[in-house]
Structure formats: C-alpha cells, structure tokens
C-alpha cells in the first residue's frame, strides 16, 4: 500500500518515522516514555508502611518551622525541640543547618529491603517551606511522596538544547535519506542488491546510473561485482549519444561481425548489413540491422517493417532509447517472420556482457524459429569451429608430428572434409608449416591447383609448389586435397604418373600431401600391392565419433539457445541410434528442433521419436547401393546388406554359402572387398567374424517382406 503513495509523501513519512524513533533512541533522557521503564515498581505494603513514616516526620517539621521562625536560626541540637527523633519507620538526624535526614529503620516489617535508605528534607529559611529529595543511599523514587524528587540537573539553555536536537535530528535524517537512496532508489537499489542487474538496465539509463554510482563511490565495486569491464562500461555510457553508424560498428565489433551501410531499403533511419564470421555458432551468415529514428515510437516502429521485403535475411531492429517498444516486440515475437527486436535492455547486455554473442543468440532464439538459426550443420564439411567435436586423436596424429603424407579414407558424409578443415584451422598459425586446402572437382589435380594459384592451366607441380611456398613466406607446405577419388581412378589408369610426382616432391621435403577419398583411395593404398600409394603415406580411417564427442555434439549447441534434452538417457538413445556417425547425430538433433512446438525448450522422448522417423534421417542413411564404380562389386554389396537386414548379421562364410546356394561361383576375394567397402562406408561394423549394421537406424530402411525379393533379384543377376 505504501508503494501507492507519492514518492515525496513516502520520503516524508520515512523522515518522520526516523525522527520519532531515532531521536528518542539517541536522547532518551528527554523522552518520558523512554525513561519510564527505569522506575522500580513499588511494593504496596512497603509503600503503606512508609506512608506512616511520613506522618512520623510531620511533628518534627512543624517544631522546626516554629523554632526557626521564632529564633531565626537552626537549633544546635534537635533534642531541644523535645520531639521524638526515632519513630517506627524513621530515625531522624540533622547533618547540616536547615536539613534533616530520615533513615529507614532496619527490620521494619514489610520494608526490610529499604532499611538504611534515606530521605533528605530541607527547610528554606526565607519561605519556611520544606523540600524533599532522596538521600544517600537514596530511597527509590517510587516510595517517595509526590512532592519529593531528585534534584534537577543544572539548568541548560533551552535554545542550545533545541539546536542540538535539530542538528542531531538532521544528521539522523541525512543518514536515513542516504540509506534510502541506496536501498530504495529505483535505479541503484536493485543493482546494489544484485549487481548482475546492471546488465539488464535500459541503455539510456546507464549515464544516470553511472553518476549515482559515482556519487556513492560505488562504481568500481559495482562493476567488479557485475563482472563488467570498465572499458565496456565507458563505451556503453557513451553509446546512446553516438550516431547510428558508430552504434552499429560498436555492436558489430562485439559479436565479430562486419558492418556496412546498406542502401535502398524503404525504412526510415539507418540500415546496415552485417556479415558474421564462421565462429558464430549458428547458421547465420549475414543479417540486416535497423536503427529507427529516435522519434519513432509504438506502432510507428512496426509500420515500416510491415511494408519492407527483406527476403530471407534476418533483420535486427534496435529500439531507440526512449521508445515504447511494446508493439515492435509483439510484431517480432511472431516467429513466422524474420524480425528480431533488440530492446534497450538487451542493448545494454550486448555492450556489457562478457559474451555478447550469447545475448544475440538468446534474442534470436526467443523471436525466430529455432531452426532458422540452428547450431547444427547437417551436411558438408563443418567449417564452424563451434560445430566440430572430437577427433582429437586423429588431429594429433597429423598436427603434432613431423610433416608427412597422409591418406584420409572413409565413406561419404563421415567427416573427412570436416577433419581437413579442422587441420587447416589448427595449423593456421603454425610458424613453419602452411596449409593449403583444395577440393578437386574431377580427376585434374594440377590444373585445379594452378587455377587456385592463378597460374597458367598447364603449370607443372614444381612451379605450383614454388608459387605456394613463396606466397606463404617460404614455409613448408601441407596440401590438403579433398575429393581425390576421381584423381586416383584416372592416375591409376595412367600408371600413377602424377602420384609419382607428388611422392618425389614430398621426399624433397618441400611439400607434403593429405589426400582424402573413399574406396578408390583405400583400394589403391591397402589392397593393391603394386600401387605406389602403399608406402606413400599413413592411412587414417575416419569412422565413428568418440562417445563423449557425440554427447557434446548433441547437447552443447542446444545450450547456446537455452534448449536441452529432458533426460540424459535421451541423449544416449540418440547417440546409440546414430551409431556415433557425426552427421547423423547432428541431423537427429536438428530434427528434434524441428519437432519442438512454439515455446517448447525441452526435448522429450516424442520429439526424438519423430526425429528418428523423419524424412531427413531416412534420407541420410539412403544411398549406399552403388559404392563402387564396378556394378558387379556393387551387386555384392547389396547382397551383403540385404542379408544383414534379413538376419541381423552375417559372415563371409554365410555369404559364400548364399551365393553358391544360388548357383553362382563365389569369388571370396571380391566378397572380402565388399565387406571392406561396406565397413569403410560405415554401413557395416565388424565384431569378431560377424558383421552387423554400423548404424542401428539403417535397419529401418527395409521391410521384412521385400527383403527375400530383393535378395533373389540380386542373386539372379550374379
């Protein structure tokens, strides 16, 4: 209720309360209620006894009045008055002129505790009036008669007393208001209670907060507690006053983007195009950024957006500092469009948080379809470092050793290109070694290299290597040659002439090669005893991803968008179903994201079930029917696959028996190659002598009823 009062009234009430409570606490002696508690409570029986005692003193005081009046002096001895000096309650003596001391007798019934305590009565010789006060030791005030009280302290000047009171009260109020400023100030107080709130303040309020923190001398401590760098704080304070171009540049710099002014957009204010680096952990390569004019407000912010056609680009709309962004927020909250409202609080977080990319991702995840900015790359070589997990052992084999030649073999979409790109990234800063990646598009290696170096198409390997070495400051070269199968097929048909040139140049130590491919490369390197590839380099096989890397691949990118799996067992199920094939893990996660309904942030079992049945998943495991250029070899592959699909597993002996049972001659060597090819393609995995599907999901392609038909068709054609 008190919050509903005007601020000035609240402050006044608090000041009055402080005055009423603080002053009495500080100056209790002037506050009757505060001292009342000090009075002892009188025993009624003792009080009654003492009341009798006071009567005993009355005759003595009367005689002393008369004596003083008649003689003008105090009697030398009270005995001359002929009045009893000891009664039932008091013994009376005179210690000075005009003064008698009444001492409570010991052992007075009900007043034993008061024995020996005294009361002093003084006679004013001029007026002949008596004063009464506690003696020494004093009788408690509660037992004294009404006209009897302790002597007042020396009189104090009233003006000084009030001045003191005002000064002390003022000090108390100042202290109170100071505390109030810290504890109740709408800007400072929440930050003092929770410094991380500094990151969620409107960008336009930062300058005021800075002044207040400076006055309170709390700036450094608050920034430290909020984990804000002073330089970032200074930038953020100045941000609101900058021109749009400078603001765009400052914000872009914090997320590593390149900002360029974009023209031709029918939007008021300033529009920029940002290009993001590969390091951005989501699939967003560029976006548009809009800074509306400061005078646009409310629905005016939305109207231009309704008319603009941004194509497929995400547009970040930065709300002006003083604008009411409710309508814009509501518009951008509709996930069917590609607009993201960056409010004034988010702009502060962007400029102050240690990881501004997370701020950007959070905003996008809240306002866009998650799949629009998916952190998973499901196809092709992984270029973003944040999407590459595991393979550390394989990377170490290439990176940590002396440069040499390598043959990287594995099936399609198993991660060869991703591994090569990871090698290229890791070696980018190497002091002695330069890495050059080239992807072949047909059998022509040298013309391709020449084209990449902008040399004449007929340049020889020596000239190309010399050019590359010069271009890389004389460093030794490691050429990463991707998609090398057509090259090997062609070179094998021409007596490995080009391969011999590669070998010669690598033996000179000028350049080494890492060649990636599938079956032709593997067959030449591992199965062809005459091939010069046999001793050309070390063979590295790319297969399943490590289990931990699979789990990381499934969970780490999700966390970037504040999403997660409901249960770790779901992650295990996903990894197992994928057979630890990296791109399948990514596809399944991507499909889980697709299955999430609006507002859902937790992946549950039904989402995973849908992902496992999705078209994208089935598509990823299709396409194994012709792994070799040789149709007869591909037919053997299909026979083996259908057999495993029908029986769950197979062996070489089983396939030999099957082929011979169909009346065909079994070529054991060809069958061995088929098993090797299917294993390399990650279709089959071998345990002892038995082969099963490497990816459990693979089995879902087949229907039990159609397998005998397929098998019979293939066997018939042998």
């Amino acid at each position: 209720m008190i919050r509903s009062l005007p601020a000035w009234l609240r402050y006044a009430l608090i000041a009055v309360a402080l005055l009423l409570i603080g002053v009495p606490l500080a100056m209790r002696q002037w506050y009757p209620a505060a001292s009342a508690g000090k009075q002892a409570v009188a025993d009624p029986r003792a009080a009654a006894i003492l009341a009798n005692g006071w009567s005993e003193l009355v005759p003595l005081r009367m005689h002393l009045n008369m004596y003083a009046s008649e003689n003008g002096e105090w009697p030398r001895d009270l005995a001359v008055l002929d009045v009893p000096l000891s009664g039932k309650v008091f013994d009376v003596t005179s210690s000075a002129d005009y003064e008698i001391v009444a001492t409570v007798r010991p052992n007075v019934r009900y007043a034993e505790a008061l024995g020996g305590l005294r009361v002093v009565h003084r006679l004013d010789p001029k007026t002949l009036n008596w004063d009464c006060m506690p003696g020494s030791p004093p009788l408690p005030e509660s037992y004294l008669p009404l006209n009897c009280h302790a002597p007042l302290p020396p009189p104090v000047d009233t003006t000084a007393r009030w001045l003191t009171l005002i000064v002390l009260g003022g000090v108390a109020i100042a202290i109170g208001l100071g505390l109030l400023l810290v504890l109740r100030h709408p800007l400072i107080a929440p930050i003092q209670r929770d410094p991380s709130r500094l990151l969620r303040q409107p960008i336009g309020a930062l300058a005021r907060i800075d002044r207040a923190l400076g006055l309170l001398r709390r700036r450094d401590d608050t920034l430290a507690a909020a984990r804000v760098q002073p330089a970032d704080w200074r930038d953020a304070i100045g941000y609101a006053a900058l021109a749009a171009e400078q603001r765009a540049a400052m914000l872009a710099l914090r997320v590593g983007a390149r900002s360029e002014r974009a023209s031709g957009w029918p939007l008021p204010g300033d529009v920029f195009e940002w290009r993001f680096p590969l390091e951005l952990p989501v699939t967003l390569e560029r976006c548009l950024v809009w800074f509306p004019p400061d005078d646009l407000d409310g629905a005016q912010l939305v109207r231009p957006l309704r008319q603009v056609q941004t194509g497929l680009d995400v547009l970040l709309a930065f709300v002006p500092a003083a604008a009411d962004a409710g309508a814009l927020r509501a518009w951008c909250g509709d996930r069917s469009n590609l607009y993201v409202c960056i409010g004034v609080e988010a702009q502060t977080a962007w400029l102050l948080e240690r990881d501004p990319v997370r701020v950007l991702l959070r905003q996008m995840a809240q306002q866009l379809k998650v799949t629009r900015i998916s952190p998973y790359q499901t196809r092709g070589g992984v270029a973003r470092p944040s999407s590459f997990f595991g393979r550390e052992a394989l990377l170490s084999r290439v990176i940590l050793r002396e440069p040499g030649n390598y043959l990287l073999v594995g099936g399609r979409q198993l991660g060869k290109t991703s591994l090569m790109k990871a090698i290229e990234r890791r070696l980018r800063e190497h002091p002695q070694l330069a890495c050059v990646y080239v992807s072949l598009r047909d059998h022509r290696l040298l013309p391709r290299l020449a084209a990449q170096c902008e040399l004449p198409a007929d340049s020889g390997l020596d000239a190309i290597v010399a050019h590359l070495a010069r271009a890389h400051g004389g460093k030794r070269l490691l050429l990463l040659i991707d998609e090398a199968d057509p090259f090997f097929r062609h070179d094998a048909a021409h007596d490995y002439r080009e391969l011999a040139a590669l070998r010669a140049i690598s033996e000179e130590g000028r350049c080494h090669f890492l060649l990636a491919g599938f079956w032709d490369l593997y067959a030449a390197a591992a199965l062809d005893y005459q091939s010069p590839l046999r001793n050309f380099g070390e063979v590295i096989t790319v297969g399943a991803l490590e289990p931990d890397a699979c789990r990381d691949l499934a969970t780490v990118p999700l966390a970037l968008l504040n999403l997660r799996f409901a249960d770790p067992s779901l992650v295990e199920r996903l990894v197992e179903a994928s057979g630890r094939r990296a791109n399948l893990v990514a596809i399944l996660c991507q499909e889980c994201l697709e299955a999430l309904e609006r507002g859902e942030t937790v992946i549950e079992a039904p989402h995973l079930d849908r992902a496992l049945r999705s078209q994208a998943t089935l598509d990823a495991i299709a396409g194994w029917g012709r792994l070799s250029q040789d149709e007869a070899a591909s037919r053997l592959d299909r026979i083996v696959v259908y057999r495993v699909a029908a029986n769950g597993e197979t062996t070489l002996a089983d396939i030999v028996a099957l082929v011979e049972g169909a009346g065909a001659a079994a070529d054991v060597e060809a069958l061995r190659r088929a098993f090797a090819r299917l294993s390399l393609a990650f279709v089959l995995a071998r345990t002892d002598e038995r082969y099963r599907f490497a990816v459990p999901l693979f089995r879902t392609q087949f229907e039990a009823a159609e397998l005998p038909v397929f098998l019979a068709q293939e066997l018939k054609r042998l």
Partner: protein
Amino acid sequence: MHNDEFADLLSGYMRRIRASAAGVATEIGMSREAVNNWRQGLSLPNRKHRHRLLDCARYLRLSERETDRLLTAAGFEPEYPVGGQPAGQPYAAHIAGLFERLARLAPYPILMLLSQAHWGQPPFRDQLLATARGVYGERAVLHIRPPYSVSAESRDYFEALGAQCGFAGVDSDFAFEAALEKRLAAGERVFCLVSRFEQGEPRLREALAGILRSLSEMYSGRLHLMLCGGEALAELKYQSGDLSLLNIASVEYWPDPGADELRDLARAQLDPARVDAALVARLAALCGGHPALIDEALRAIAGDARLTDADLADRLGASARLWEGFVPLVDDADARERIGAWLRGTRLGRAQPYLLDRHLRRLFWANLVAVRPGEQGAVVEWRCDAVRQAGLQVLAGGAA
C-alpha cells in the same frame, strides 16, 4: 495441317541452335531420314515414339511450354499441362517456402527439387524465378539449363552455360568457374537455378557439379543453388554418390496439389462460378493429384458439365498419358509379374527417400504412384483408380 505445324516448329527450333537432322537423329536414336521426313512435313512421329520426341525437345533445349507445343503439334498430349502455366497460381506459397528452407541450409544452401513425370523440372519455373528475383534481387539470379547432348564438347557446353548466365568470354570450365567466382568474391550473394540438372553428358555434368560444389565451399553461404530434376537426378544422388555436390544437397519433392491448388487449377480452365468444394473433391478423388489427369478431367468437365463420376473415371482410365506411362515399365516378365501383383493389391510398400525396389521406383517417377501418409508412416499407393484401371488394361493387352 498438323504435319505443317509440327514441321515448322521443329525446323524453327532446330535452326535456333543450328542443329542438323543428323545430329538430332543421333541424339534421339532415330534415322536421319525419319527426322528429315518430320521436318519436311511428310510424316509425324509414331505414337510409340513419344519419348523420342521428348528427348528431341530436351536436345533442342526447349522450355516446358515449347515442349508441349511441339508434342501437341505432333498429335500427342502435352507433357507439362499444369506446371507450365503462368504465375499467379496456387503453388506460390510453396515456392516461397522453398526459398525460406533454402536459406536455412547454411553453410551450404543447396536444394535438390525433384519432380515426378508431367511436372516441369522445375514446375512453375517462371514463378520460381520471379520469386527468386524478389528474394535475391534481379541481378543475383542465374538460370542454368545444361545443354542436352551425348556428344557436346566441353567448350560448347560451358559456352552455353556462360551465355545463360550472362558471362562474357567463357570458353572452358575454368573460365566459367572464374566468371562465377568473380561475382562471389565481390561479396555478392548469387542464386542459381539449374533446370534439368541431370541432362547432358556425364563428364560435363560432373564438371559443372564440381564447380558448383567447390564454389559453394569456398564462398560459404553466398552461392544458393536449386538443382531441379527427376528420376535421373535422384539416381545420381542416391545411387552413384560420386557427386559430392548432391551428397550435401537437401532433397525436396514437388508436392501433390491440395484443395487450394486444385481450386486454382480449376479456375484457370473453368468458369470460376462452377468451381466449388464438390468439384475440388471430385478432382482429388478421380485424379489422385496426377497433373495430367487433372488437366484432362478439367477439359472433359468443361466440355460436358453433366459428365458423371463413372464416365469421367472411364475416360481418365483410358488416358493416353497413363498408357504411355505404363508401357515402358512392363517390358519384361519380372516387371509384369511384380506390377501385376501390386495392381491387384492396395498397398505397394513403405515410402522411402529412395525406393529400393526398382519397379516401384520407376512407377513413382512415372507419376503412377504417390507417397501418402499411413498409420505406420508414409506409404506408396496407386494415385487413383484410373491409374490402376489403365495398368490392368496395359497388362491385359500385353498378355493378349
């Protein structure tokens, strides 16, 4: 009359690319005399040779509309009765969605758009290109139509591609690559629609795929590709696997028309006042989403408003397009047995991105079967009763 129109069209199309009668004859597997007779108006292609005329249209690099015109002039039904219609049609939302999904395929925005027979490759190409221009900008849209030829030289092939893209001085694959790379290196985002990607000589197609893949990788996210095709393109992806461009492409199939699409298609041929929910339901039930049957049904209804469902079903079952679709598929005993068994049953099998059964696959690409949702996931079904009726008639005719 027909002879003259067909002869004029064929001669005009041949003159346009300077094709000789001998060249055409070699490409389509006919004699030079036969082609010369067509050109001179002395004869028309035999009914059995419709597919050869389709090969001829591809070789002559005809658009869907030109192909249909040539087929009609030869007395055949058009191949693309629906997909060649002008823009403003029902698939606009689907086309917009295609571009939205393409953008999400970063860092390699490569989409394979597969369509069954009687849809263009791609369907509604003009609408697709118009949408692309709206999304990417006029200058950023390239349209590649690989020349169809079994004997094309690399120089001619890439010269043609260069001309289609507006690149000057392209005389080799490297020159084509350099011209495209120049635009990407300048920071441009380029959208490239490749119609009928699979057609042409494999070596040259491989070179084109290699260039596109290599530039996609080098200029990650800047080259947006939509590769359009049908059966042959699917075979290249799922069977061959040699073209890594296709391995990293995402696949989409052109969808069957829904109620909205059927309504708009009907409005294009009938008085809009006659197009109501009942008509749409009738088209859906009787045509099963087959674009050519929809076209035939609409023409039949336009001609006779009192046509009953039974009459219409009979007429569709006797469609020449269905007959032409079935005949090449039942050319061996094995196929006849298998397809015959399916024609007598209801369910043909479970749907897969790539159907493992060769016969089922051929039926799918001939657009005689459709993938539809089932209780246990998507299944393959006959498109409609008219298709089954036509299949049974073809098998019965063959047996007879």
